[in-house]
C-alpha cells in the first residue's frame, strides 16, 4: 500500500558526518512508519542518532541519504510544507530569555502566518492551556524549568499541527509536572495529533507510546509494541549482588541458568530460562559453592530489559 | 581546564595561604593556556595596533611638522607608545570575556565555592593577560624595528616598557573583570570595549597634547593614560630618563591597585546580592 498518507515515513535515512577515515555514520539507514494518531516512542542512548534523526525529520538537518516524508511532504523538497504541519518542542533549544511568553507566542503566530486578528487570542488561549496566563507578560528569563517546558509546548501548538515532535519533554521535571504533561500529551493525541516522542524515561514510553523504536549506533535495533518487545525478552531477570571477590565464580555458576544480562555495577543479572521457579535453585547453587548472596531481586521483563538487551546498557535513572 | 578543575575540587588540606597560592597558580596557568588556545581572540590585539601604527604613519606623516609636535624622525617613532597602550587595552578584553563566559556557564560559581581567596581568583584570571601584555610590548617593538623604528632608550628602555605593559594589562584587565562580574554577560564585556577606546582617545596616545585645544586638551592633560604613554614615548624618542621610567611603570601600578580593588568590590556585591 502507499505510504503517502502516513504522518511520518523514513526510508533508509542516513546522516554521515565528516569524510574519509574520520567519517561517522551518525544515522545509518533508519526506516520508520508511524501511523496516523499514534504516539510513537523513540529511544536510544545519548549519541545513538536519536536527535540526529529527529533533526532530519523536522527539516533542521539535510539527510546524507535515504528519504523521509512527514505529514505527507518530503522533508527536503517540501521542507516548508513539512514545517507548516508539524510542531516541535525542543528540549535543548533555549527560549529567548529577554522576551515575554506572550511576545514569543505572538511572534510564533506571525511566523506561522496566522491572521493578525488571531494572534492575541491564540496566544492567550495557549497560555491558559499550559497554565502560564499569570506569567505571560514576564520575561522568559524569570521562568522556572517547568514553566519553560510548558511554554515550549505552547509554542509548538500555535498552528494546531497534525504531527508533534516532543524531544525529551519531561527531562528534569518533578513528578507532578511530568504527570500533568503526560495528560496534556494524551489529550492532544485523543484530538488526533500524531506524536513522536523521544525520551530517556522508559516508563514514559511504556505509559504513552503505542509503539517504540530503539536506536543504537545509528541503526534501529528494536521496533514494536512495548508488550511484544517485553515478551520477546521472555524470561524474567534475576539480579544477584555478591562480594566483589567472588563475582567471577558467581558468574560461571549463574551462566548455568541462562544468559547473563547487563546490570548495574556490583550486581550480576541473569535471564532465568526456567522462569521464576529457578530462583530457589540459584540460591542453593550459590550457597553450596560458598558464595554469600547480599541481595536478590527478580524482575519481570520491562522496557528496561528490552533496552538493555538491545543496546547492551541500561539507562541511568531507568524506572524499574 | 582539567588542571584547574581538579585542583579546585580538591578538598582543602593545607593552610589557607598555601592553598590559595596553589589555586592562584592553577588559575594563572589556566588563563595563560586559554589565551594560547584561542588565537582568534588574541591575534586581533596584535594586529590592530600595528595596523593603526602603519595607518597613522601613512596618514599623518605630514602632520609631524605641525606646531606642537615633538622632534621625531617619523610618525612611527611617535606612534609606538600609542600602539603598545592600544594593544594592551585590546588584549585585556580577552581575559574578561573568558571570565564572563565562566560566569555564564557556572564555572565561576564553582570556583567561588572553593577555598581560593577572592583576590587570587581575580589576579589568577588576569595572569594570562599580564604575560600577554609584556609579550605584546616586545612584539610591537620587534615587528616595527625593520620598518624604521628606533628606541633611543636602548635595551633598558625596552625592558622598562615591557614591565609597564605587563602592569598595564593587570590594570585594564581588572577593570574589565569588574565589568564581567557585574553583568555576567560576555556580550556586554565585548560591548564595553569601545569604552576603552575612549580612554585611549582622550589622551595623547595618537597626537601630542600640545596640538589639542580647549576642554579636549584639558581632559587629555588629566588622563593618566596620557602620562604613561608619554613615559613610553620619551623612552622611544628621547632616551632613558628616570622621569620616563617612573611614568611608564608607576602610573599603571597605581591604576592596578584601584582597578583590582574595584573588581573585588564588584565581586563582593555580586556575592552579597544572592
Amino acid at each position, binding site marked *: 500500500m502507499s505510504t*503517502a*498518507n502516513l504522518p511520518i515515513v523514513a526510508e533508509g535515512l542516513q546522516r554521515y558526518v565528516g569524510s574519509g577515515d574520520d567519517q561517522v555514520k551518525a544515522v545509518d539507514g533508519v526506516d520508520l512508519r508511524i501511523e*496516523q*494518531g499514534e504516539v510513537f516512542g523513540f529511544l536510544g542512548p545519548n549519541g545513538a542518532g536519536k536527535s540526529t534523526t529527529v533533526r532530519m525529520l523536522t527539516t*533542521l*538537518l539535510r539527510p546524507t541519504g535515504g528519504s523521509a516524508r512527514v*505529514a*505527507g*511532504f518530503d522533508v527536503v523538497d517540501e521542507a516548508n*510544507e513539512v*514545517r*507548516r*504541519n508539524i510542531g516541535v518542542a*525542543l528540549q535543548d*533549544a533555549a527560549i*529567548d530569555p*529577554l*522576551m515575554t511568553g506572550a*511576545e514569543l507566542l505572538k*511572534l510564533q503566530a*506571525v*511566523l*506561522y*502566518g*496566522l491572521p493578525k486578528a488571531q494572534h492575541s487570542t491564540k496566544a492567550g488561549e495557549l497560555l491558559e492551556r499550559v497554565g502560564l496566563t499569570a506569567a505571560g507578560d514576564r*520575561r522568559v528569563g524569570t521562568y522556572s524549568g517547568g514553566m519553560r517546558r510548558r511554554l515550549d509546548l505552547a*509554542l509548538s501548538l500555535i*498552528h494546531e499541527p497534525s504531527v508533534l515532535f516532543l524531544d525529551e519533554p519531561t527531562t528534569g521535571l518533578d513528578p507532578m509536572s511530568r504527570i500533568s504533561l503526560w495528560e496534556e500529551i494524551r489529550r492532544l493525541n485523543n484530538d*488526533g495529533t500524531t506524536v513522536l516522542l523521544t525520551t530517556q524515561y522508559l516508563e514514559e514510553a511504556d505509559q504513552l507510546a503505542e509503539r517504540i523504536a530503539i536506536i543504537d549506533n545509528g541503526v534501529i535495533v528494536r521496533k514494536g509494541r512495548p508488550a511484544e518487545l517485553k515478551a520477546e525478552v521472555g524470561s524474567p531477570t534475576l539480579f544477584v549482588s555478591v562480594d566483589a571477590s567472588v563475582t567471577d565464580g558467581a558468574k560461571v555458576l549463574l551462566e548455568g541458568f541462562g544468559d547473563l544480562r547487563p546490570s548495574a555495577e556490583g550486581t550480576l543479572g541473569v535471564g532465568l530460562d526456567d522462569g521464576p521457579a529457578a530462583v530457589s535453585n540459584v540460591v542453593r547453587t550459590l550457597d553450596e559453592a560458598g558464595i554469600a548472596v547480599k541481595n536478590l531481586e527478580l524482575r519481570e521483563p520491562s522496557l528496561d530489559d528490552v533496552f538493555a538487551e538491545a543496546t547492551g546498557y541500561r539507562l541511568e535513572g531507568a524506572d524499574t | 581546564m582539567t588542571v584547574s578543575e581538579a585542583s579546585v575540587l580538591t578538598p582543602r588540606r593545607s593552610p589557607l595561604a598555601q592553598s590559595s597560592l596553589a589555586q592562584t597558580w592553577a588559575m594563572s596557568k589556566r588563563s595563560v593556556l586559554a589565551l594560547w588556545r584561542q588565537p*582568534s*581572540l588574541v591575534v*586581533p590585539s596584535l594586529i*590592530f595596533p600595528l*595596523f593603526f601604527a*602603519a*595607518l597613522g604613519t*601613512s*596618514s*599623518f606623516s*605630514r*602632520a609631524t611638522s*605641525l606646531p606642537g609636535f615633538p622632534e621625531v624622525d617619523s610618525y612611527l617613532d611617535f606612534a609606538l607608545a600609542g600602539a603598545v597602550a592600544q594593544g594592551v587595552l585590546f588584549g585585556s578584553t580577552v581575559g574578561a570575556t573568558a571570565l564572563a563566559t565562566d560566569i555564564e556557564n557556572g564555572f565561576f560559581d564553582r570556583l567561588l565555592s572553593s577555598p581560593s581567596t577572592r583576590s587570587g581568583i581575580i589576579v589568577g584570571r588576569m595572569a594570562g593577560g599580564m604575560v600577554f601584555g609584556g609579550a605584546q610590548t616586545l612584539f610591537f617593538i620587534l615587528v616595527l624595528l625593520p620598518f624604521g623604528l628606533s628606541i633611543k632608550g636602548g635595551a633598558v628602555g625596552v625592558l622598562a616598557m615591557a614591565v609597564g605593559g605587563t602592569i598595564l594589562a593587570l590594570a585594564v584587565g581588572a577593570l574589565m573583570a569588574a565589568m564581567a562580574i557585574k553583568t555576567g*554577560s560576555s*556580550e*556586554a564585556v*565585548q*560591548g*564595553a570595549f*569601545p*569604552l576603552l*577606546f*575612549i580612554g585611549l*582617545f*582622550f589622551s595623547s596616545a*595618537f*597626537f601630542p597634547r600640545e*596640538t*589639542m*585645544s580647549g576642554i*579636549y586638551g584639558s581632559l587629555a592633560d588629566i588622563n593618566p593614560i596620557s602620562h604613561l604613554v608619554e613615559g613610553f614615548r620619551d623612552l622611544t624618542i628621547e632616551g632613558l630618563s628616570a622621569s620616563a621610567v617612573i611614568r611608564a611603570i608607576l602610573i599603571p601600578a597605581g591604576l592596578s591597585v584601584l582597578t583590582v580593588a574595584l573588581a573585588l568590590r564588584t565581586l563582593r556585591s555580586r556575592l552579597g546580592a544572592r
Partner: protein
Amino acid sequence: MTALDDTRPELSKNPQRNAATTRVWPASVGLMRRSLVNIVRLPSAFIPSIMMPIFQAIAFSGTFFAIIQIPGFPTDRSINWFLPLGVVMGSGFAGIGIGFATIRDLEGGFYDRLRLTPAPRTSLVTGPLFAALVRSAIVTSIVFVVGSLFGARLTHGPLGLVPLFIAGLGIAAIGTGWGLGLAYRFRDMRAAAIMQLTFFLLIFLTEAQTPLFIMEGWLEGVTRINPFNNVIRLSRLGFLDAPMTWDNTWGGLLALFVFAGGTLLFARRGLAKLSDV
C-alpha cells in the same frame, strides 16, 4: 497541494490546516521587532553601541584636531571631517551587532526554533536587516544632533543629510549581511572577531583619517583602489567645502549597492547551508 490533500484524507480534518502561508513582509517585521526588543532590553550592550559612534566622532576630531591646519584640508572644522566617520562606524556596528545576536541564538538553540517555522527563509535575513536599518537611522540621527552641538555644520544645507543617512543605512545592510553570513558559517564567537577585524579594515583603508592628498606611502595606493572609499566620501558630502555633485555621489551609491547585495547574498547562502551541519 490539493492533489496531495486528496491522498491524505486524515490530515484534512481541520480545514484551516495547510491553508496559511507566511509572507515575507509580516514575518520580517515580526523578526525585526524581536531583534529591536532584544537590543533595547540588553542596555549594557545597547548603550555603548549608541555612545561609541558619538564618542568616536568627538574623540577623533579632538585628538586629530590639528590636521585641519594642513594647507588644503577640505574643511576648517575637524568635527565636520570626523562626524560622518562616526556614523559609518556606528551603522556598521548596528549591522554587525545583528551578527553577534545571531551567534548567541545559534549557540543557544533559539535559531533552531526560528528555522522550524515556515517563515520564508528570506525573512530570517530581512527581519534582522530591518532592525539594523532602524538602529542605523537612530544612531545617525543622534550622532548628527550631538555632533552639531559640538560644532558640526552642514555646509550645503539640510540636503547634506541625505547622503549621510544613505551611507549609514547602506553600511548597516553590509554589516548585517557580513555579520549574518559569518555567524552562519562559524556558529560561535570566532565569527564575531572576524566581523570586527574585517570591518575595521574595510573602513580604515580609506580616507577615514586623512584625505588622499595628505597621505604618503602604502595607504595612498590602497585607498585609491578601495571601492569602499567612495562610501566614506559619500557620507561626508554634506559637510565639506567642495560642492555636492552627482559626480561625487554615484560612486558611493554603486559601491553600497554592490557591497550590500554581495554580503546579503552571502548571508542567504550561509542560511541555506545551515541544514548541512
